[in-house]
C-alpha cells in the first residue's frame, strides 16, 4: 500500500510545465505517480488527502534562513525553525552559518544537519566562506561540499576583501556551487540602523546608503568577469536579499552579459518601505533595511521580468528582550517563514498579476536550482515527495502569537495574507496540516 494519495487538486509544477488537475501518489518518500483525475482510482494509500479546490505544488525551498542553533537556541532551534518552515509550506531550508560558533567546519556542518537536531523539513547548510566569517581565509570548500555544503557565504557580513572574494569564487566554481554574498560595504554603514533618506533624517537615525549595497555587487560582478577571462572558470555569484534599484539594475546587466549571477529578494523588500519603521519599530529593522518606494517597485519589476531568481525569507528570529531595545541597539532581522507565501501571493499574484505557477517557480524550482538540490523543487515522478497543498484564494491575517517560531519579531503581525497552507509533506511525511494544527492552538 502507498503512503499518501492526494486527490482532486490542481497540480502546479513549473519544472515539468504542468498546471492541471492531477492526482498524485506518494510512495516511500517519493512521487510514485502523477495522473489525470481518476487515473489513480485503483491506488490504495494509508492516507488520502482531498485537495479539491487546492493547489498542489512542490514544497517550497528557502535558501536563506537563520535557525540559531548551535549557540542561540533562546531565539530559535532547528526543531522550532523548521516547524515554522513546515507551517509556511517549506520542505527545504538552507541554514546560514552565523551560528555560535560559526559553521565553518565539517564537524560543525555534520552536527547541524544531524537527525538528532529534530528538523521536521529537509535541512541543508551553507557554511562560512571564510573561517569564523572573519573575511580573511577561505574555508575548506572541498571537504565541506563532500559533507553536504550547498554553497558558501559569510552572511550577515560581506566578504569584503577583493582577493578573498575572488579566491572564494574560484574555489566554489571548481566544485560547482555558488558563493552567496551579503552585499554591504560595511566601511560605509558603521553606526547605521536603517535606509538612508528622508525618513532616517527625520528620525535622527544614520542611514545605510544605496551605494553601500551597489558597490559590493559591482565589485563582485567585476571579479566574475575577471575570473572568466583569466581563469576560464564560470564562477557562480549569488546575491542575497537584493534591496535597491541600483543593485537590481547591475544584476540585470550582468545577466544580459551572460555572467552566472543569481539573486534573491525577501518578501519584506517587495512589501514594505522604510516608512514602516514608524515610531522606531524594531520589528521593521533588518539588514539590508527596508528601502524607499522606488526600490520596492524595482524589486517587483525584477521579480516580474525574471531578473530575480528566487524569493528567500532571511528568516532571522530574535528574542523579545533583544528587540525591546533602543532602535539603534536592537539586532537586525525579522522572522519570515510563515509569511512568505502569503505575502508573495498577495503582492505578486493578487497585486501584480503574476501567475501562481511563476510564484511557485520563484519559491521552489528556481531556489532548488541555485543550490542544486537534486529531486527537489519539482513533483516529477521519482522526485522527493516534497509537497505543499494550499488554498490560493484564502485571505487571512497572520498572527505572530500563533507562530511556530520561538520568536515573534515580525512587522507582519495582523497583516493580510493571501493563500493558506493546508498541508505540507516532506519526503512523504505530513509535517504540517492546517486543520489539525489550528484546532490544537
Amino acid at each position, binding site marked *: 500500500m502507498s503512503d499518501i494519495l492526494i486527490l482532486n487538486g490542481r497540480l502546479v509544477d513549473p519544472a515539468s510545465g504542468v498546471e492541471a488537475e492531477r492526482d498524485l501518489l506518494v510512495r516511500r518518500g517519493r512521487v510514485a505517480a502523477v495522473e489525470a483525475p481518476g487515473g489513480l482510482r485503483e491506488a490504495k494509500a494509508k492516507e488520502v488527502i482531498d485537495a479539491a479546490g487546492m493547489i498542489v505544488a512542490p514544497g517550497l525551498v528557502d535558501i536563506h534562513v537563520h535557525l540559531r542553533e548551535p549557540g542561540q537556541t533562546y531565539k530559535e532551534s532547528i526543531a522550532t525553525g523548521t516547524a515554522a518552515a513546515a507551517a509556511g509550506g517549506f520542505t527545504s531550508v538552507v541554514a546560514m552559518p552565523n551560528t555560535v560558533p560559526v559553521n565553518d567546519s565539517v564537524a560543525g556542518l555534520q552536527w547541524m544537519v544531524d537527525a538528532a537536531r529534530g528538523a521536521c523539513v529537509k535541512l541543508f547548510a551553507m557554511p562560512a566562506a571564510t573561517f569564523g566569517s572573519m573575511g580573511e581565509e577561505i574555508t575548506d570548500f572541498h571537504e565541506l561540499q563532500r559533507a553536504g555544503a550547498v554553497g558558501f557565504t559569510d552572511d550577515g557580513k560581506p566578504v569584503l576583501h577583493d582577493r578573498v572574494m575572488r579566491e572564494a569564487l574560484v574555489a566554489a566554481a571548481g566544485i560547482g556551487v555558488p558563493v552567496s554574498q551579503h552585499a554591504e560595504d560595511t566601511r560605509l554603514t558603521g553606526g547605521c540602523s536603517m535606509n538612508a533618506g528622508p525618513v532616517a533624517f527625520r*528620525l*535622527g537615525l544614520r542611514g545605510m546608503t544605496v551605494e553601500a549595497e551597489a558597490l559590493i555587487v559591482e565589485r563582485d560582478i567585476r571579479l566574475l568577469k575577471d575570473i572568466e577571462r583569466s581563469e576560464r572558470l564560470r564562477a557562480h555569484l549569488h546575491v542575497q536579499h537584493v534591496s535597491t534599484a541600483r543593485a537590481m539594475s547591475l544584476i540585470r546587466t550582468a545577466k544580459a552579459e551572460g555572467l552566472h549571477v543569481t539573486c534573491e529578494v525577501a518578501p519584506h523588500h517587495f512589501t514594505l518601505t522604510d516608512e514602516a519603521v514608524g515610531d522606531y519599530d524594531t520589528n521593521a529593522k533588518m539588514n539590508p533595511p527596508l528601502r524607499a518606494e522606488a526600490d520596492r517597485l524595482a524589486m517587483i519589476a525584477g521579480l516580474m521580468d525574471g531578473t530575480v531568481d528566487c524569493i528567500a525569507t532571511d528568516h532571522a528570529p530574535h528574542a523579545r528582550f533583544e528587540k525591546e531595545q533602543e532602535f*539603534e541597539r536592537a539586532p537586525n532581522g525579522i522572522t519570515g517563514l510563515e509569511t512568505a507565501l502569503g505575502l508573495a501571493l498577495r503582492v505578486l499574484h493578487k497585486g501584480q498579476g503574476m501567475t501562481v505557477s511563476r510564484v511557485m517557480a520563484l519559491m521552489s524550482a528556481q531556489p532548488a536550482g541555485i543550490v542544486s538540490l537534486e529531486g527537489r523543487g519539482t513533483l516529477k515522478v521519482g522526485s522527493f515527495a516534497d509537497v505543499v497543498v494550499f488554498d490560493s484564494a484564502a485571505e487571512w491575517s497572520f498572527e505572530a502569537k500563533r507562530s511556530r517560531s520561538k520568536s515573534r519579531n515580525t512587522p507582519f503581525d495582523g497583516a493580510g495574507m493571501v493563500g493558506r497552507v493546508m498541508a505540507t509533506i516532506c519526503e512523504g511525511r505530513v509535517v504540517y496540516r492546517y486543520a489539525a494544527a489550528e484546532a490544537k492552538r
Partner: protein
Amino acid sequence: MTSMTPSVHSAVESAGYAAGSLLTVADLPVVEVAAILAATDRFEQMVSTDRARTLAGRRIALLFYESSTRTRTSFELAAKSLGAITTLVSDKSSSIEKGESLKDTGLTLRALGAECIILRHANSGAPYLLARSTGLPVLNAGDGMHEHPSQALLDLRTILARLPGLRGRLINGRTLEGVTVVITGDILHSRVARSNAMLLPRLGAEVLLCGPKELLPEEALGLGEGVEIERDFDKALKRAQVVMMLRIQQERIAGLELDLADYILRYQLNEERLSACAPSALVMHPGPMIRGLEISGEVADGPNSAIEEQVRHGLAVRTALLVRALSADGFASVTV
C-alpha cells in the same frame, strides 16, 4: 484658557502612549501648542505658594543617559516649583552601568512610584520605547539626533516674546507668518534643529536651514512644508528675523572631516556679519555654545542675543509640560 480637546489626548493614547507624553513635536496639534503656551503664562504669573500646591507630592523621575546642564536643571527646578518630588537617575551612577536595559530601568522607576519620566538619551527614539514599556507619560528631553520638543517650545516662546508685534498674538497656523528663522550649523546631528524645523512652519514661519553638505544633507527638506535649504549664510541672514546657531557636535561627528577654519569663515555668526546682513535679527542658541567657533562672544553677549532668555523660557515652558504630563485631562483639572 483654551480648553483641551479630548481628541488630542486620545490620538496620543491610541498610539499606545500615555496622555501627556511629549515625544515629538510632529504630532502636536497647534491648539495643543497654544494650550501649553497659555498654561506657561499662567504658571509663570502664579504666586509661588500656589504653584507649589499644583503637583504637591507627585513623583517625577529624571532619567539622564547624557550630560545636560540647562535641560536637566530647568526640568528639576520646574518640578520642584510645582511641589513635586524629583529623583535624578543618571547612567553614571546607577544600574545602567551594570547593563540594565532602558525598559527595566523604566519599570523600576515606575515600581518606585514615578508618575512621569523625563528622559535624555543618546539613542534616537528611546523615549518611544520607554513610553511603550512603562505606560507612563514620558517627556522627551532630547533623544540622540531626533528631537528636543521642549526646546522648540521654549524657542517659540522666546520668539513670541522678543519679536516686535508678536506678543499676545493668538496661537494658530498664521502666528509666525512673515517670520523667517535661519538655523545654521550642524543640522545633521541636531535634535534642536529637527524640532524647530518641524514646529515653527506649522505656526506660519519659514525655516531656512544653513550649513555645509556634510552637516546638512538634502534629505532635511523632508522635515516638512516651509523648510528650505540656503547654504550661503549671508544670503540666509539677509532674509532672517531670527537666527539660531548650533554647535558642531564633536561627540557625534565620528569620521567626518571638517576644516574648522573654513567653517568659521563661512558660518560663524560674528558682529561684522550680523551688522552687515541682519542688524536687527534675534540671535538664539540652544547651548551649549562654543564661543569663537559657531558664534563670537560679542554676538552672544550683544543686544540681539536672546540666549539667556531662552533658558528662562525653558524653565517656564517645562513647568507647563510637567503639569500637562501629570494631569489626566490635560490642564483642565489644575486650572485656577
